[in-house]
């Protein structure tokens, strides 16, 4: 009985879109080394769509798989669609996550959103309308448990 689903294992072993985008249109970083999870997302935007996405992640197997899955889900989507990617959707696409690893799926969605924020800010469009969820997320600066 492995801890992780086959889908998580696949994305962990063969993570999609690992790397960095030089001159990215938006960069989002969440987590910190003290908490044991840190993700940086890079996006290229074209015609209001995520044209390319890359990530770097420090963290457990779930954190890496989540990053990979989020990057795949984001690719080609409009920025509005990207905003609608929820942690639950990520977990579901990964065929479930262990209870104590759910916070990883939060982090993934957050990092992507932050990259979009960054893109919009650079465009002088301001951070756009943040979802209520994201505002709440940002308040949680201490390490999440479970």
């Amino acid at each position, binding site marked *: 009985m492995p801890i992780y689903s086959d889908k998580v294992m696949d994305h962990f072993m063969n993570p999609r879109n690992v790397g960095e985008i030089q001159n990215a249109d938006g960069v989002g970083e969440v987590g910190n*080394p*003290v908490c*044991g999870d*840190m993700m940086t997302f890079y996006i290229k935007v074209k015609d209001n769509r995520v044209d390319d996405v890359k990530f*770097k*992640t*420090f*963290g457990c197997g779930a954190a890496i798989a989540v990053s990979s899955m989020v990057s795949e889900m984001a690719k080609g989507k409009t920025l509005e669609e990207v905003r609608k990617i929820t942690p639950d959707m990520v977990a579901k696409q990964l065929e479930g996550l262990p209870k104590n690893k759910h916070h990883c799926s939060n982090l993934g969605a957050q990092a992507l959103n932050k990259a979009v924020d960054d893109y919009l800010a650079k465009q002088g469009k301001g951070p756009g309308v943040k979802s209520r969820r994201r505002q709440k997320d940002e308040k949680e600066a201490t390490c999440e*448990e479970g």
Partner: protein
Amino acid sequence: MTKVYLDNAATTPVLPEVLEAMLPYLREAYGNPQSIHDWGDEVREGIEEARGRVAALIGASPEEILFTSSGTESNNMAIKGLAMAQQSKGKHVVVSAIEHFSVLHSARTLEKAGFELTLVPVDKHGLVHPGEVARSLRPDTVLVSIMWANTEVGTIQPMAEIARVVKESGAVFHTDAVAAAGNIPVDVGQTGVDALSLAANQFYGPKGAGALCVKRGIRILPLLDGGVQEGGRRPGTENVPGIVGLGKAAEMAKMGMPSRMKHLTALRDRLIDGLPSRIDHMMLTGHRTQRLPGSASFCIEFIEGESMLMLLNQKGIAASSGSACTSRALKASHVLTAMGIPVELSHGSLLFTFGIANAESDADHVLESLPPIVERLRKMSPLYDKFLKQERGGK
């Protein structure tokens, strides 16, 4: 694929001879040791033989050995039962900062029951200094518990010196020897220990079989209420096959200890010496020489323990980690933290523990497999990225 088990700290395999000794008690010798008939007599004999063997392993008398279900139960009974039995003399308890949770959390439970608790610090090698123990003692200290050896970083404590300090104060001295007993020489009489916990699955015996040694004259309250087993001190139908297996494992450990230690120390040193020359930015945790024979523990910078374990597993290697992610509670290892290791570094904890079945080629398999794994994860790591950029910037 080569399968290499290097997680003997989590649990060891059961030796065939141990299983052989247990099997009659899972087949024809099924009686209850408390029964008054041949079936009971036969089984009682098996239990008493095991008691003698466990006693012999740790230099105790057979009647000083109580059988329990695990190291955790032994530690709970020791910490709570010893402190509660001495509480008329005082309500102060001392344990080290790097104890196993079964000791640490039991001590916290005592706090809730009105005891005061002092945690003795350790140095950066994980060593408890007898002087620190002395400093923590008070006139109302009734119990001191310092683990014999630490599972996570391998460090072995100077038990005789610590015991001497505690004995002078008149407090009862317990030691969690779950990682030590059966693996290194442990002698309660010579060392001056009043109570000691051990567990069979740490030295090639079965899971579910622990023991608590309580020296004659030391009062202890039972943890479980019930019938007459173990003189009423640990009631419940005895885990007869487990007890017999524990006994056999103890006998074999005593006999084989010198050669086992030599074998394991060589394997461990092969990793301790070999890995840092292959991997940058990693450190040994625990003491270099005063450490468990089979234990090679490290912290590796910029990457996280669980992901290393998963990639090692893909290479057929079983190891463990004190990383927060590998603990269900997602807390950084209190052991590494107590040793002054920064939390971000502790996430990169990695522990290889050799067993008697391992060979040099197993160490070599790690020496080959780990460097590319570390490289792969570092390539993904934003922390390593930042480090490289800073370094380049610094130049």
